[in-house]
């Protein structure tokens, strides 16, 4: 009898060891997968089109990734609590329009005012989701329509130009550190702060807990409703930052112009960056590479000289393949 027990113990120990190795490998891939995939893709482009890097390829990818990154970070916060925000790109456009209108008269206060407003827009989403307990997909689909209409009405359905003080934000697009435009640096800074917030603060940990198991979180005294409002407010805030980068880039905004198409790239970037669409898994640092990858694909297909008619096809395939590669799969979870 004792021998059986002994072998049993040994085999269990070995099993945990093997399991541990496998778990470490999975965790490592989770940690670096999005980075590796981006680097490989970028390397392929750089090798096949050597002039690309010299021609400022890095800057181009980073500057187109910047607004995507900002909305993706906000989206990731919402995904992390197990919800979704379909209205964030509409908030970006509305924020950009508001900034274009106020930058002249209000000067340096304008970005602040706009950021407060968009944060409140996000908070409204969050309050309804948290307190009316409605499915976020449907709710934000509804508020998406409302924000779009607001953008049309506020702008008078036309392009709004910044009439003065553009310099206050323009440096974000024109300025650069080590080939990386300030808009992108801003996104990275936000991502790092978000990472610290998620990993090292109780509200951050609470949000992830809500995403992993909301009931369990509630019974552990995590303030799930408040955290949902915070997550949506952050989504609104970051959408507003994206709006600022748009003004920095273009000096004007319009309801159907720059920023209006950020919703899907934002979601794709968050997910390619390893964020789980069902909640509870988010690494803001990986979202950086998610955004870079999503921004890189159309640039890469162009740089590599793909026929324009094939570029949509390639984009679709790449998104699916990359997500399939970086996805965190737990054996038991139901995939929806």
């Amino acid at each position, binding site marked *: 009898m004792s021998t059986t027990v002994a072998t049993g113990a040994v085999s269990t120990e070995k099993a945990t060891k093997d399991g541990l190795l496998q778990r470490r490998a999975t965790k490592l891939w989770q940690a670096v997968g999005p980075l590796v995939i981006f680097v490989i893709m970028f390397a392929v482009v750089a090798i096949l089109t050597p002039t690309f890097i010299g021609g400022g390829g890095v800057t181009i990818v980073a500057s*187109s990734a910047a607004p995507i990154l900002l909305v993706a970070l906000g989206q990731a916060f919402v995904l992390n609590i197990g919800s979704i925000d379909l209205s964030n790109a509409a908030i970006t456009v509305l924020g950009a329009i508001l900034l274009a209108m106020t930058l*002249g008269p209000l000067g340096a206060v304008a970005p602040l005012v706009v950021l407060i407003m968009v944060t409140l827009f996000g908070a409204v989403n969050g309050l309804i989701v948290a307190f009316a307990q409605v499915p976020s997909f449907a709710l934000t689909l509804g508020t998406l329509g409302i924000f779009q209409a607001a953008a049309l009405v506020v702008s*008078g*359905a036309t*392009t709004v130009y910044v*009439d003065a003080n553009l310099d206050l934000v323009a440096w974000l697009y024109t300025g650069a550190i080590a080939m990386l435009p300030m808009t992108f640096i801003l996104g990275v800074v936000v991502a790092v702060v978000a990472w610290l917030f998620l990993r090292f603060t109780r509200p951050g940990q609470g949000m992830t807990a809500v995403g992993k198991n909301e009931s369990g979180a509630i019974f552990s005294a995590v303030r799930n409703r408040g955290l949902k409002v915070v997550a949506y407010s952050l989504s609104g805030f970051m959408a507003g930052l994206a709006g600022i980068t748009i003004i920095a880039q273009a000096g004007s905004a319009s309801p*159907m112009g720059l920023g209006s198409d950020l919703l899907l790239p934002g979601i794709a970037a968050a997910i390619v960056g390893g964020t789980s669409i069902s909640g509870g898994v988010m690494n803001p640092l990986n979202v950086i590479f998610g955004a870079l990858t999503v921004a890189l694909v159309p640039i890469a297909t162009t740089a590599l000289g793909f026929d324009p008619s094939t570029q949509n096809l390639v984009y679709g395939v790449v998104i699916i393949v990359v997500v399939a590669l970086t996805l965190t799969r737990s054996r038991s979870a139901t995939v929806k």
Partner: protein
Amino acid sequence: MSLGTKAKRFGAVAALATAAALALSGCTSTAGGTTAAQPLKKEDLVFVCSVINTTNPYFAANIEGCQTLGKKLGIPVEVVDSNGSSQTEISKIQAILAKGKKAVVFVNTVASSDAPTIVNAVKAAGGFVTIWWNKPDNLDPAKVGNNFVAFQKHSGIDSGKCTTEALSKAIGEKGGIIALPGVQDSTTSATRVAGLKEALATQFPNVKLLDVRPSNWDPQLAYKNSKDLIAKYGDQIKGVWTADDGMQIGAMQAFKEAGLLNKVKFVSDGLYPPTVDAMKAHEGNDAIVGETFHRGYMASAIGLYTAYLAAIGKIDPSKLPHEKRDSMFKISCVTPGNLDEYLKWDNNVAGWVDTLIEKGPWDTEPVPLVAGGPEVIKPEYK
């Protein structure tokens, strides 16, 4: 269109009164450098042809024009499909710029606000760009420098006037019409609508504009809106004005289904192949009574050729008169009667491009330069 009106809507009234006054001078100070760069060599050049999508007949013609010119001049052509997205447009253009060859760029911008970014990127890469249709009013090629060779367009107001005249006359200068503009924040659509309103106000007081339903350049939406408007107005609708032929396709389909195609007249802008076919077939008792003539291949070829001339040093943009930097090209009014004389170019794009190369970008029939911009919409027709 003035900043003051917009500001009022937003509510900050008082503070903006002064700001509005400053509006025109407040443009960003991108150095108006006129430093004559070294002329570029032909073999270093690449043509970039950026369109909003590749399947709309107008954009398809844009591409055809770019490719024909590229072939004539022996310069490779890269096509950028923006897919309706400003961000995609900008990053794809930048990707081509990054590949190192000096780019000669024609851009049909997705939104006006894309223009500054594209212009700056091309300038930074040492390329030359001509923008078509949409740019911010305060983005002046002369202030940007030689790399922003020109902004070019056909007059939207003229287009609106020409089609409205045809429509009003066809319905006997009285009765109701409906209008289907394009995307609401598009200046192209807005100027065409302004032309429509101006013509009605000044020439046809008895023609009543029943309803205006923006249809986003989308045939499906135009179809739906038309169906709803038919339900609303029934046979009060004598004429249909659309801002482009894509929407006209949808509108005509709706009227056809309602059995009204024979009783209603249509006008639009662009003279797309389906429109040509419909006119030739006298569809619906000659339902289409007016169109404007301008061609995608002409626009792109003129745009690229202008930029090309600047690139190889044949012209010095800084020395060009204002109307050649901010240009409006002729738009012609086409009716079923004079249709054929305009269609002759379509069968001989290469021949037309030869004429362009021979006569230069500003003097080629049927689209010679007629005026300088910017095109200003009078507030009452907004």
